[in-house]
């Protein structure tokens, strides 16, 4: 296995593991606002590692540019969507638990 394939393996496995950890956090954290942090893990490092792993496997420049666009869209739109959601939740009356650290 050459170096490029090895790096792809590592990045893809790290990315998939990051997404699983993010989903576990979404299940186990006690509070809505804590769960937004867990969801953010998947959008940032999960997507980043998986897309970088795929970039190493791309054969043409067009694929690399498309992957960069996918990453850029996810990285730019995910914080905006999270912000809109948190604002909607606060306006809807959801408050942070006092004792959940």
């Amino acid at each position: 296995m050459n170096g490029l394939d090895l790096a792809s393996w590592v990045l893809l496995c790290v990315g998939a593991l990051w997404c699983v950890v993010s989903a576990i956090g979404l299940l186990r954290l006690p509070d809505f606002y804590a769960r937004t942090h867990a969801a953010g893990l998947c959008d940032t490092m999960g997507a980043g590692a998986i897309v970088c792993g795929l970039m190493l496997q791309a054969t043409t420049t067009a694929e690399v540019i498309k992957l960069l666009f996918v990453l850029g869209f996810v990285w730019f739109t995910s914080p905006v969507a999270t912000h809109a959601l948190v604002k909607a939740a606060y306006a809807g009356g959801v408050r942070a638990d006092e004792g959940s650290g």
Partner: protein
Amino acid sequence: MFATAMVGILVAMGLLIVRAGLGPTVYDRILAVNAFGTLTVLLISVLGYLRGRPEWLDLALVYALVNFVGVVAVCKFSRFGGFATDRLYKGSRT
């Protein structure tokens, strides 16, 4: 390697569906569906490479945008009760 990543993403998607079903408030469900959409984008990309069709990246690109627009629309709807905001801002809670 693509199959391993795909299995990991599918496991995460399953856990997110559990949160979407459980979530005590509607906002938990919207959060789970937003993360599910991001995972769908990643799954389409990985599946494209697994099947030897990297053209599927175009689908992933489109779905990334669709997911964003959908989540913002649902947040707007749950906050204001509608999509037209110039009338609704006056009476809304902030």
